[in-house]
């Protein structure tokens, strides 16, 4: 948030971060989060979409210590401190995987496919990793 002033004259764009990959098997989820925080620091209008295997990123109770990795779930909790509250989760992706947002680490908005498609269509910049 401190670096927000270093560039552009107040342009605010709608940035959507699309998360479709499971955590830990690849680094994309973790490195995507780093961009999300920077986009917030630039005072952009940030949304996150979780669909397909991306929904696994939000499960609570991760314990990657036995495989020598760091649990990065706390970063999702920190999003609120950056005023990032638009987290959209695809309902059908949850259902197909037998998951429920009750097991999620942060509050999210569950949307159906039509709503998710509309959210995607309304963006200025879409980042996928």
């Amino acid at each position, binding site marked *: 948030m401190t670096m927000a002033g270093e560039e552009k004259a107040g342009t605010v764009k709608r*940035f959507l971060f699309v998360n479709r990959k499971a955590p830990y098997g690849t680094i994309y989820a973790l*490195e995507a989060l*780093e961009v999300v925080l*920077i*986009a917030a620091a*630039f005072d*952009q209008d940030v949304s996150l979409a979780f669909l397909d295997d991306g929904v696994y990123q939000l499960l609570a109770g991760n314990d990657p210590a036995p495989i020598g990795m760091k649990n990065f779930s706390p970063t999702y909790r920190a999003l609120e401190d950056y005023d990032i509250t638009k987290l959209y989760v695809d309902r059908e992706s949850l259902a197909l995987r037998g998951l429920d947002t009750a097991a999620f680490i942060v509050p999210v908005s569950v949307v159906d496919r039509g709503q998710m498609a509309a959210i995607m269509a309304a963006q200025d910049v*879409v980042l996928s*990793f």
Partner: protein
Amino acid sequence: MNIGILVNEGPYTHQAADSAYQFASAALREGHTIHRVFFYHDGVYNGSSLTEPPRDDRQIVERWSTLAREHHIDLVVCVAAALRRGIREQNLAPGFRISGLGQLVESGIQADRLVVFGD
């Protein structure tokens, strides 16, 4: 039009780095400008000065350097992703610079379009 490009994969293993280069070249031929090419994740390996592919293969890193020199394109390698993967000033190819993720977000804000290539 001013176009930003994000490259998420390294050279040779995935086609993403090739597609990004071909797209950038075509955009220039069509009369557009490239706001910046940002290299993230394994994309940072595109900036390695130490690659030495077979002589009859395309020279991906050199190709980026040439594009930067001839068209004044800003090639930026993400510092955090690069440190994690062993790309530093000492093995950075000509035309590339190392900077932060703010440069990617800035490209999203300032460019008219941001096109992502990855795996």
